[in-house]
């Protein structure tokens, strides 16, 4: 699924990577627990999370996550935005909660990693 579709489905705002919405995500993971994301590799995944600290960006880099959606309308700090820009990780923000966001993406064809 393209990031532009994710944006449309979740009525999301693009915080980082407006020029990279053609990027494909193969699958998705949803978690606020960083170690859960690190227990399996998430190659090419979209991450849905309610966590907005710098560790989300670091975890994404280590775990192979290619783009992030912050759910529940959570606003990251400028530090987090700058770090995502530095590493080329697109960030979207949706006001839907985690459950609804996952449900909408899943029913549109985006599946979990395995």
């Amino acid at each position, binding site marked *: 699924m393209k990031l532009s579709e994710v944006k449309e489905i979740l009525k999301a705002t693009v915080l980082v990577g407006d020029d990279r919405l053609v990027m494909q995500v193969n699958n998705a993971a949803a978690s606020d627990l960083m*170690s*859960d994301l690190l227990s399996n590799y998430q190659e090419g995944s979209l991450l849905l999370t309610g966590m907005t*600290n*710098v560790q989300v960006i*670091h975890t994404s880099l280590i775990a*192979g996550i290619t783009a992030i959606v912050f759910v529940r309308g959570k606003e990251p700090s400028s530090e987090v935005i700058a770090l995502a820009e530095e590493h080329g990780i697109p960030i979207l923000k949706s006001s839907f909660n985690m459950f609804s966001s996952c449900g909408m993406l899943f029913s549109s064809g985006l599946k979990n990693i395995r």
Partner: protein
Amino acid sequence: MKKEYEIKARDFVRAGKAAIGVQNILKSIGFEQDIIRRVSICAYESEMNVVMHGADGSLLLGVENKEIVLEVRDSGEGIEDIELALKEGYSTASEEHRDMGFGAGMGLPNMKKHSNVFEISSQKGNGTYLRMVFWVNGNRE
């Protein structure tokens, strides 16, 4: 080659920089993606452990022909019961750590899962030493 990174206890903003450094070095050498991801995950989890539980510490990356080695030390509080600490879900993390998405009791189990050799030694009050080996060709020759 060897590369050492200092890890500062409680520096949550920098936490992860050593692991990202390790990942970049392994990428630039041209290792296969599978081993890069396994080493990076272990470097990151161990770095977070030092930041959360340790006093200051260090992470040493060693790259040889047939193996990659990570050695992580800290001078922190140490682990009283290592067997218990290796159980998935067991954690002594604080509310602060959990608020950041860590402290789910998955760190050490993740490291054990992703490394080929996993050694840990620790004593209450005497810090922790971790050594993880990753075989470059999948199986040890």
